[in-house]
Every structure is written in structure tokens, then in C-alpha cells.
């Protein structure tokens, strides 16, 4: 009879590897604090007579009878684990000046106990090209704020919390990283990568008290805290991206001598010659350009000419809201968007130009006479 049989660690390790017990996202974990109890029973006979069964105890029981053993027990400890993810796998497009542009993330409590979460933000300047393109824009990291969704899944005024107070095991919370005002200095196509990092905190502390791993002797009757996430630091993160989608305006200006007083063919820019200027405005961006106004100081050596275009107007417009307009002075009396101000600048405003769609263009023509 073998009285002591050593456990075979090598065999055990192989078995562990083969089982590969994994924790799926949907697995219902045994809650921390659950007491797992176990009691074995031995049936036997003496001299051919069946004896009353004996139940086990942690230290050894010899008293026969059902219920007279003592369970061997331990308490399931707090397995701290979490998943932070970016939602949608796409960048969030926004335009300069947008109020409350936001990125959307989720935090999933993959542990077995309610936890809180505190957040920090970092700009991923290098090393991340999510989803396409390096970080090349400064959103002003200090201006970005974290907001926790209040449960409706929609970013709105109700989302005021900056940390997760309590998230039950298996539950997901939506977290937003918000730019209160997208900087006006950003250009079409600019990208910025923002890493949201979540650190597990004690539940009910509004993220104020970070969870710590238990140290020292383990106690089978107490709930100890075990960090089970990657890196075992109770910290996980994910990257999302803002991409600027704005109008990108290109302006060109050309001149053409219409008539030098002697000829209209290959006319020369000599005094008294009529010169027509053409200003081209092109939107190479991805958003419509609105509120456009062209301002052109008329050269002091020239005189702005009126009444030369269709219907006796002063300016011809192609691709705009109006085909022509009149440049009164010094204010836009007829509100067609065109006038010459007190210092002689020609202004062609949005009322005449309208908005320019992406890849669209507007051309403005006016004529001066060389003094």
C-alpha cells in the first residue's frame, strides 16, 4: 500500500497546457467572495458489515454520519481584468471649430468583481498609424476631456462623469474623449491619435482610489486582489483617431490686358489700357467651404471699372451663387455681397460666392484701367 504518493508536477504541467482553460469575454466568472466548499464521503465495511459513512474535514474527521463532517473551503479572490477598446475601427472625422467632437471607446470589466476606473490620456505621436496615417496634428492634449456615458449610449450633456464609479463584472461602459473646441489652426487631412488608458480603481470611489494587488500571506477566507490583465498592472488602453476634414482653399489670380487703346489682340499694359483680373478659388478639401469672402486691394495705379459686365454690372462670377454683382462704395448697399470699402479694397462676399463644395471652384472677374 502506498501511504504517501508525491504529486507529479511534470505530468500536471503538461495537463495544464493541454487544457488551455481560457476566459472568454462572455464567460460568467464566479464572483469574488464566493466560498467554494467541498466535502468527501467514505463508505466502508468492517468484518463484512457496512459502516456508517464518514464525511471529510480539513483536518481529518472520524465521526460517522451525514452532516457531521466539515467542508474544506476557500474564498474566490478578486480577479482584476479589463478590456479597453476603440469603437468602430475607424477614425472620427471632425472640422476645425467643432464643439465637442468626440472619440468613442468601451471599457469591459472582464474580472469577477465590481470595479471603478480612472482615466488618463496620451497623444500617440509615433508608433501608431491607427487607422491610417501618423499623428501630425496638435489637438491640444490638455484641452481634451474624458466623459463617461450615462447609459444611453449617446454623447450628450448628461455625460458628466470623468471616471467610472462602479462597473459590475461582465459589464461594458462607453467612454468618450471630447475635444471641447477643435482648434481652428488644424488643416484638412491632419490626424491625431489619442490613447485612452484605464486604470482599475476601487468601486464606489469615482476612480479616486486605485485598486492595489494584495501582498503578504494569503488567507483562504479573505478576498485577495489579483491583477490578471496583460502586464498584470490593472491598466489597459486603446487608441482612436481624430482626422480633420475641412475645406482647403486655393486662390489664384491672373490678369489679361483687354484693350490698350490701340488693339485688343496682344494688347500691352500701357497707361489707359483695360486690364481684367481673374481670381480663382478652388476647394481641394473634403468639406464645403462656406462664408467665403475675397478681398482684393485695387492697385493705386489703376481705376476700378464699373458697368462692364452683363446687365451693366461690375463683376462677373462663374460657379458662384450670383452670376454678377455690383461693387458699390463704401458699403454693400444692395447686399449682393460685393462692394468697394473706404480704402478702395474690392470685397466679393459669400452672398455672391455662396459655398464651394469639395473639388468645386468659383471664378471672379473684374476690370481696371491703368492710370
Amino acid at each position, binding site marked *: 500500500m502506498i*501511504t504517501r504518493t508525491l504529486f507529479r508536477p511534470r505530468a*500536471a504541467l503538461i495537463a495544464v497546457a493541454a487544457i488551455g482553460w481560457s476566459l472568454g469575454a462572455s464567460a460568467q466568472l464566479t464572483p469574488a467572495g464566493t466560498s467554494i466548499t467541498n466535502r*468527501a464521503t467514505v463508505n466502508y465495511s468492517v468484518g463484512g458489515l457496512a459502516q456508517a459513512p*464518514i464525511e*471529510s474535514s480539513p483536518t481529518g*474527521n*472520524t*465521526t460517522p454520519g*451525514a452532516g457531521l463532517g466539515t467542508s474544506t473551503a476557500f474564498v474566490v479572490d478578486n480577479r482584476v481584468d479589463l478590456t479597453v477598446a476603440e469603437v468602430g475601427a475607424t477614425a472620427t472625422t471632425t472640422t476645425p471649430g467643432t464643439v465637442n467632437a468626440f472619440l468613442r471607446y468601451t471599457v469591459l470589466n472582464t474580472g469577477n468583481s465590481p470595479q471603478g476606473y480612472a482615466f488618463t490620456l496620451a497623444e500617440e505621436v509615433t508608433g501608431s498609424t491607427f487607422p491610417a496615417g501618423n499623428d501630425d496634428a496638435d489637438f491640444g492634449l490638455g484641452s481634451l476631456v474624458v466623459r463617461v456615458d450615462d447609459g444611453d449610449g449617446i454623447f450628450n450633456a448628461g455625460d458628466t462623469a470623468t471616471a467610472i464609479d462602479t462597473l459590475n463584472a461582465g459589464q461594458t461602459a462607453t467612454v468618450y474623449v471630447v475635444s471641447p473646441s477643435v482648434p481652428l489652426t488644424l488643416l484638412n487631412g491632419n490626424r491625431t491619435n489619442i490613447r485612452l488608458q484605464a486604470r482599475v480603481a476601487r468601486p464606489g470611489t469615482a476612480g479616486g482610489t486605485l485598486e492595489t494587488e494584495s501582498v503578504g500571506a494569503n488567507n483562504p477566507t479573505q478576498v485577495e486582489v489579483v491583477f490578471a490583465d496583460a502586464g498584470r498592472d490593472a491598466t489597459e488602453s486603446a487608441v482612436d483617431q481624430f482626422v480633420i476634414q475641412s475645406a482647403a482653399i486655393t486662390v489664384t489670380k491672373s490678369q489679361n490686358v483687354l484693350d490698350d487703346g490701340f488693339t485688343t489682340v496682344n494688347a500691352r499694359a500701357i497707361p489707359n489700357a483695360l486690364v481684367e483680373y481673374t481670381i480663382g478659388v478652388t476647394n481641394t478639401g473634403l468639406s464645403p467651404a462656406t462664408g467665403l469672402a475675397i478681398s482684393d486691394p485695387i492697385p493705386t495705379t489703376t481705376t476700378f471699372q464699373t458697368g462692364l459686365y452683363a446687365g451693366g454690372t461690375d463683376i462677373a462670377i462663374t460657379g458662384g451663387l450670383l452670376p454678377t454683382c455690383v461693387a458699390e462704395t463704401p458699403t454693400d448697399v444692395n447686399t449682393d455681397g460685393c462692394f468697394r470699402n473706404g480704402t478702395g479694397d474690392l470685397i466679393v462676399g459669400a452672398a455672391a460666392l455662396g459655398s464651394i463644395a469639395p473639388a468645386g471652384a468659383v471664378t471672379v472677374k473684374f476690370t481696371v484701367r491703368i492710370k
Partner: protein
Amino acid sequence: MSNRTTVLRLAMLAAALGGATTALAQTADRGCIELKTVAEVQETYVDARGNEATRLVPAAKVVPGDEVIWTIVANNVCTTPAGDIAITNPVPEHMRYVGSSAFGPGSQIVFSLDGNTFAAPDALVVAEADGTRRTARADEYSAIRWVLPRPMGPSESMMVRYRATVL
């Protein structure tokens, strides 16, 4: 709640209520087997020569996904041999038996799906919802029984062991 837990609780209830007198009488008796259950986990450590090794430590820090090694030791504390020894252990609630992990020197190991009927793994059959039948998976076992085919002499002891994962 599983059936086996219900059965166990009913048994305990019976012992607590109607069986009080009987229980006292049994308490006065001392059985011939001392039975002990120990919960341990395997820990990796570095030994004195700098090599990684494993050892068993009491199951104090256990989280879901961990394996617990249950060890049951039976000692014959009488001066006469004990025969027909069968040690039965339900797989604890919140745990799942790890396949092929049960062992017990010299004993036959049988398993149960319902906690009452025990059989060898090949003989345990599960009926699927669509009527097909298949051999039960190890993680479906609800109880384990070790049967010692020969008597255990005075002062002799036997140890059986299995592993189960915390769900």
C-alpha cells in the same frame, strides 16, 4: 442549483432536524476511517539551485480560471482491516473537473453525471437535445468515486486526488 447540492442540503437538513438523537449517538461512536479533504494550488518557485520548480501550497489565493488540486486522505484508525472502501466527492459548485486529473493508487475511478450513478468514462452517455447520444465530456462530471478493491489494513492510509478549475 444542481441536484447534488439539493440532495446534500436535504441530507444535512435531515441530520439537523429529525436525526438529532441518531446524530448524537453517532457522535459518540468513532468510525474506523479518518477522512480529510485538502485544497491546494500549484505554485512555481525557484529552488535553492536556481531551478524553477513547482510545489503545492494551500488554496488561499484563487481566482476564476485557476486550478485547485483537491486531495482526500483516508486513514484506517482502527485495529481491524476496513473493506469495501469507496470515497465519493462531488465536484464543488463553481468548479469544473479537469479531464484525466483524477488519480488514486490502486483504486478504480468512476464518475457520475447526476451524483447517484457512477460508471467508467466510456459508459457515461449524454443525450443531446436532438436525440443523439454521445460520451460525456469530463467537464460534465458532477462527482468522482474511488473504489479500493482490497481491504485497508490498520494504520494504513490512501490518498486520492483530482484537479478542478474555478469557473
